[in-house]
């Protein structure tokens, strides 16, 4: 049963990811991305980490996607279709390969538990404890970076407003 669920979810993720890349219509691509992200949420549930699954739905399925879809729907989607591959594709390929290498490295380095029973349930409180006590400094730095990005986005948007 669990295995079946895993394969369904993994299939969803893969199909969604492929769809993002292969579909020409950008809005459909965004929909496939949502599908893929929800599949990831399903995997989190399988890993007994409900909190992460719900946050995945809330943040990625909700807030991040809305921005993406917003941007896609408000620009000239149909004209963008033909310009999907720009001059930057070698850079993109390099970045993708680098990421793939990083993932493979992580995969080989990690000591995966072979027995499913060894998977420990991470309680809600432990996550909070880890975030705000053990990793509080990196956490704060990340939030600072995000804040800077936010301010930057606002400034860029304001410039556009002023140009009109």
């Amino acid at each position, binding site marked *: 049963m669990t295995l079946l669920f895993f394969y369904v979810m993994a299939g969803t993720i893969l199909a969604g990811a492929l769809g993002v890349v292969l579909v020409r219509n950008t*809005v*459909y691509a965004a*929909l496939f991305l*949502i599908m893929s992200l929800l599949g990831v949420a399903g995997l989190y549930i399988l890993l007994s980490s*409900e*909190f992460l699954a*719900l*946050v995945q*739905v*809330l943040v990625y*399925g*909700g*807030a991040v*996607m*809305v921005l993406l*879809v*917003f941007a896609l*729907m*408000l620009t000239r989607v149909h004209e963008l279709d033909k310009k999907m591959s720009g001059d930057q594709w070698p850079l993109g390929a390099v970045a993708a390969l680098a990421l793939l290498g990083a993932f493979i490295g992580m995969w080989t380095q990690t000591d995966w538990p072979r027995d499913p029973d060894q998977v420990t349930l991470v309680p*809600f409180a432990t996550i909070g404890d880890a975030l705000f006590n053990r990793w509080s400094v990196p956490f704060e730095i990340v939030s600072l970076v995000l804040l800077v990005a936010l301010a930057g986005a606002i400034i860029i948007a304001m410039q556009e407003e002023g140009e009109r």
Partner: protein
Amino acid sequence: MMRAVILAAPSVDALDNPALSALLGLIVITLIMTLGVMFATWYERKAVARMQQRLGPMRVGPWGLLQPIADTLKLVSKEGVRPASADRIAWDLSLAAIFVPAFLVLVAIPFTADWFVSPMDLSLLYILAVGGLSFIGFLLAGWGSDNKYALLGGMRAAAQLISYEIPMILSMLAVVMVVGSADVYRIILYQDVVPLIVWQPLAFIIFLTATIAELERQPFDIPTGESEVAGGVFIEYSGIRWSLFQLTGYVNMYAYSLLGAFVFLGGWEWPFGTDIGWGYQLLLTMVKMALFIVFFLWVRTSFPRLRVDQLMSYAWKVLLPFALAQIFLNGLVLVYDLPDVVLLATSGGGALALCWLVYSVVRVKPRQPLRMVGNVPATAPGSVSG
């Protein structure tokens, strides 16, 4: 203590297949909610009519009680028209994307102490997360209808839902901090003596406004605003599709009203305790839910709609800082282990500050009253005649 009993079908409790029992529970809950929604349409029309000194529906059945059935028949038998240029996939998918989350939310709601579909450790978070997914449907409907009003409505809906989700989640977070659990069941049990509305009035006010915005009811019905975007995302939908959208809206209203009743008014626990039997508990739940619904209707009849920028600035400049302040104050109180009264004091103070802000911001510049001109000297001698 927590037993998974299938809602309204205790006899099939024997089914040990959790997937099957969950499915059955979902079906039962869907049927009950559909009936509830039919009643709600009648009730809404009647209540709003009374607040406008009208009679409301009177023709079908006694006091128009059968009106929802007539409406349903009419809507179901209507032709479903789809614009030729609409995006077929997005057009139909949007329906599911709005419909499914609304009913999935109900899975985690404990109607009485032992009547719910599935127990969950993080049910509050689940309700908020799944309930927040409906924006995808709005965006799809808005984009897929190939109609500019629908597109505007979809954009407004998405922006509004995302914006108001944040203060709503934060207000809930404040409650979670006080209770120490994100399970609705535990939150209800916590309120055996005093409901949380007493300790967290600011969170309650934020929740209330954010809920109305999430439900897209007046004065936050900007995405569907009839006088501006003429129905918004629903503009091209007709017949059974349109009625499914409406159904979803009402199911959401029930779900959020139940959530409010559980989290802030003590649900079935306050004031009689857990031992009064499921019948009374259900009744208590219903009454508290009805309070919310009546309030929504009341607000709907009384207020004009906000503008888009006002809506956004209200969410981001007013509700969000206050919600953060609430969380911060709660944190102080909890860390230093101060008595609950301090919670009330800080939160109540915040609530008053919120009200004062809303009051004063609109009246930044007190306006001069109209001038009354009594005797204007005649600018022209008499009137022209030929």
